[in-house]
């Protein structure tokens, strides 16, 4: 480990190059959401973002009121930023590896509301449990 | 696909080998044939001692025009120098070129950043175009120009252009452009000994011999 530490690592200089353009894109997407209820999504993984870019985005968007944790196929974090309607979504795998990171501009991300079929399946299961209970089983 | 002959493999393999063999073979042929020619004996009394020293001197003094000719030709001489210098920077400064030379001869030296090379290549291309325009419009130069001049011009122009295209990925996939670049340069190498481009080597001898003969006779060279 000692020898490894002596290898000089030189991180590339990283000015905030893409964040200003991203903020403009978010503002335009919010306009579209207000006018025509159009959803928008920006895949952060497909952009070369430097740490300075990330800091600038975090600072400009701030922290909002909702933090959600989704636990299916690994964890996912869905956070509303300080700008209502802008959601920071991070999906990770079962091994905790980040799969995708995106900014969604919408009222609620599509992945949040319960799906009709899933509700129906859940209802079925609930009815079964009620029936089991009614018939005296535990 | 794998069954087709890959153009880049051809350029790096058989084509390169053939071009180098022709270059060396042709250059020795031309050089030996010229040097082994019969020379007439000069029976006059020599006006200077060691005339060959003056011949060597001529090789350098002829690198710049004499004062009398300057007003007429100095600007075109400058363009020509610009071209030769830029071309030299491109040939011996670019790292891939150095690696190729190292592979063949074992000689190696540090390279230059690609920004410098692309600038030099641009300068060489523009000065070549200017020299072509000059050749095509100058009444005397036009008359003494033949196929050799224009074809040699093309073979020098082509590797410069295709090299830049390959670097900037203009006009096709990189590996194809690189193959075309290498093939055009190989054509240049094979053509060189048999054309006026042989002046890259022969200019030393022609100037030296001219200088020796005229200084022996007491003329300024």
């Amino acid at each position: 480990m000692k020898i490894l530490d002596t290898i000089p690592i030189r991180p590339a200089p990283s000015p905030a190059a893409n964040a200003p353009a991203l903020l403009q894109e978010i503002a335009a997407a919010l306009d579209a959401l207000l006018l025509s209820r159009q959803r928008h999504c920006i895949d952060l993984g497909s952009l070369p973002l430097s740490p300075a870019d990330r800091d600038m985005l975090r600072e400009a968007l701030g922290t909002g009121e909702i933090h959600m944790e989704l636990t299916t196929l690994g964890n996912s974090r869905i956070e509303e930023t300080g700008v209502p309607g802008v959601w920071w979504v991070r999906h990770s795998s079962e091994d905790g590896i980040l799969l995708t990171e995106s900014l969604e501009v919408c009222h609620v991300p599509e992945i949040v509301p319960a799906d009709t079929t899933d509700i129906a399946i859940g209802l079925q299961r609930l009815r079964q449990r009620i029936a089991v209970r009614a018939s005296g089983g535990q | 696909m794998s069954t087709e002959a890959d153009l880049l493999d051809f350029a790096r393999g058989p084509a390169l080998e053939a071009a180098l063999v022709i270059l060396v073979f042709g250059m020795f042929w031309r050089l030996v044939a010229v040097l082994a020619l019969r020379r007439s004996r000069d029976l006059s009394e020599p006006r200077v001692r060691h005339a060959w020293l003056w011949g060597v001197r001529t090789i350098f003094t002829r690198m710049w025009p004499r004062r009398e000719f300057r007003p007429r030709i100095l600007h075109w001489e400058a363009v020509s120098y610009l071209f030769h210098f830029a071309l030299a920077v491109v040939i011996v400064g670019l790292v891939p070129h150095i690696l190729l030379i190292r592979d063949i001869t074992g000689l190696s030296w540090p390279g230059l950043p690609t920004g410098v090379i692309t600038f030099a290549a641009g300068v060489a291309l523009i000065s070549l175009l200017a020299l072509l325009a000059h050749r095509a419009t100058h009444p005397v130069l036009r008359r003494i120009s033949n196929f050799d001049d224009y074809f040699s011009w093309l073979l020098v122009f082509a590797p410069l252009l295709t090299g830049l295209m390959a670097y900037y990925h203009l006009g096709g996939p990189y590996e194809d452009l690189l193959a075309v670049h290498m093939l055009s340069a190989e054509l240049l190498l094979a053509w060189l000994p048999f054309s006026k481009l042989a002046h890259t080597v022969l200019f030393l001898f022609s100037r030296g011999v001219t200088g020796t003969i005229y200084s022996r006779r007491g003329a300024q060279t």
Partner: protein
Amino acid sequence: MDETILDAFRQNGLSRRAFLKFCAATTSLLALPPAAAAAMAEKLAGTLRPTVIYLSYQECTGCLESMTRSFSPTIEHLMFNNISLAFNDTLQAAAGEAAEAARKEAMRKAWGKYILIVDGAVPMGGGGAYCVAAGQSAVDDLRHAAQGAAAIIAVGTCAAFGGVPYAAPNPTGAVPVSEIIRDRPIINVSGCPPIPEVMTGVIVYYLSFGMPALDRQGRPVAFYGNTIHDRCYRRPFYDEGRFAHTFDDEGARNGWCLYELGCKGPVTYNACATLKWNQGTSFPIQSGHGCLGCSEPDFWDKGGFYRPLPAATGHWPRGEVLGGAALGGAVVGVGAAALARSRQQAAAAKSAKEVSHPPPKEDSHEH
């Protein structure tokens, strides 16, 4: 068999949310616009799980090893939810007669609709005798299986371009899949091995959107659209002219460009520099070794892994060949000079007869 991919998710106790997450991750992996996630979700929700037959011929199982290490979408999701992996002789529990019977049954049921994954080159030499399983040669087996396939995915450089078996002198007469099968759509997923996420990503893309856009080598442009060099984080060093000259010099320690050490990044199309390997940990250049060009045809026969790209590929004796050329040129030159001398003499004799005045001109090419 008739369940859709979304049904399969639910069968495994997963919600639509898991399905949407899977689509979002895959869309991001494929570098598709985020809006495509919705389109993918819609398409996959209604798509029946296709049968996949995975055949291995002249190969080392490295591709399958790589594929099972895919993290997004993982091979488990692919196997349990998206596809019905009907036959893979390495992963399945069944063996011998039972395995062959299961495979025949799966192929019969899904005839004309299944996806055929081929791993490895196909030896043609000796009537195909170099690779035989269950009494059938690889070439006959492939010809038969391809007839019932909707599409073929040639996984790995061996299946796509011939790879290692195809390398000179190719003792088994190995050929890539595309030289045997010409009437079925083939997607080449090259690499030795291919990046795991590329293999699984291509399968999911095919299920969602059909045939992907292919480059001239038959590879999906989404993954093979750029060279390693153009996406390499060490590219700025190439432009600045900073190179490692040996594997242990100052340049190598500083992480400079590996071009001089034989890196084939400039002519290699793959996604290593962006997707990387082992869950995005690193890729060869990041670990200090040049690119071998393993996703390109004939990468074994390009002069050597450590020979720089501009160097000659041939291993010919430079000194002897060029020395011989110089000697030959000199001999021809002497001959030409002798001929010229005899002509000079003849001309001199002739003019001496006419006038007494020494004629030979000096040879002067330049001013």
